[in-house]
């Protein structure tokens, strides 16, 4: 009863304290982790299928750098790593009550994330102009499927980040309530993590 009364007195919009049952985190964060669990399965299905097809048909793939442009993708990889550090800096800023820092780092993350998508579109145009299209065969179809789904995730992440940035400018986040920033941050870092695996498997091996 005392616990219920204490909760009633608190702002219901604020995350509950960490003593609640379950995973020990607030609901939005738990929900994002459950979603990311499903995303792990999704990308594992793609990567697993890719590995199986590649091992079964080794001659269908070219050596690294022959078809795919490694330098431009390496730059894109670096950009995504940069965007992860700007995202986590935004999270650290809002946790510390530095709201101008939050806005600054969120804008940086949006810009870098958008650049990543732009570079990927440029890469696709470049590859298609060279005749490397999805219907080219196993190499082309698996490449565009994997990088395309990842690019789609990055695009969704950028759209969500723009929304979070807009809310940050409205003063919706504070050192007491930063759920939106943390949850989109988890998604963004996951997208970065997936790219780390994809870059190695698709481009370097």
């Amino acid at each position, binding site marked *: 009863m005392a616990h219920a009364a204490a909760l009633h007195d608190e702002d219901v919009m604020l995350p509950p304290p960490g003593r609640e049952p379950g995973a020990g985190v607030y609901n939005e964060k738990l929900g994002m982790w459950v979603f990311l669990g499903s995303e792990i399965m999704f990308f594992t299905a793609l990567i697993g299928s890719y590995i199986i097809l590649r091992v079964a048909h080794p001659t269908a793939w070219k050596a690294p750098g022959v078809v795919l442009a490694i330098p431009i993708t390496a730059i894109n990889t670096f950009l995504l790593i940069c965007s992860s550090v700007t995202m986590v800096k935004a999270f650290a800023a809002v946790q510390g009550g530095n709201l101008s820092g939050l806005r600054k780092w969120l804008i940086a993350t949006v810009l870098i994330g958008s650049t990543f998508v732009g570079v990927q579109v440029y890469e696709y145009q470049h590859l298609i102009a060279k005749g490397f299209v999805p219907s080219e065969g196993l190499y082309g179809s698996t490449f565009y499927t994997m990088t395309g789904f990842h690019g789609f995730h990055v695009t969704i992440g950028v759209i969500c980040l723009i929304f979070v940035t807009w809310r940050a400018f409205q003063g919706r986040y504070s050192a007491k309530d930063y759920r939106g920033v943390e949850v989109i*941050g988890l998604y963004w870092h996951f997208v970065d*993590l997936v790219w780390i695996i994809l870059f190695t498997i698709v481009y370097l091996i």
Partner: protein
Amino acid sequence: MEEAKHAPHPNYIAVFIALAVLTGIELFVAFLPWSQMTKILILIGLAVWKAVMVALYYMHLRFEPQRLRWLAVAPLPLAVILVFIVTREFRW
């Protein structure tokens, strides 16, 4: 947000530098005149290392409650089972 209050902020810039350096090593290894299997093992090892760093420090899994960490790693055995079962369909 008590669980977040207790979570320390690691040195994010150091993690970033480590990720960038490991990416550089990957690019170097990819074009070495070594056997394909050696390069695959090294490159996948480096990629997993980088991915674990992102999960532990940027996604703060290292500082999360144990139950959430279990939730995060739970899909991985299922993913391995998925790949293993599908590979049974192939004969190479």
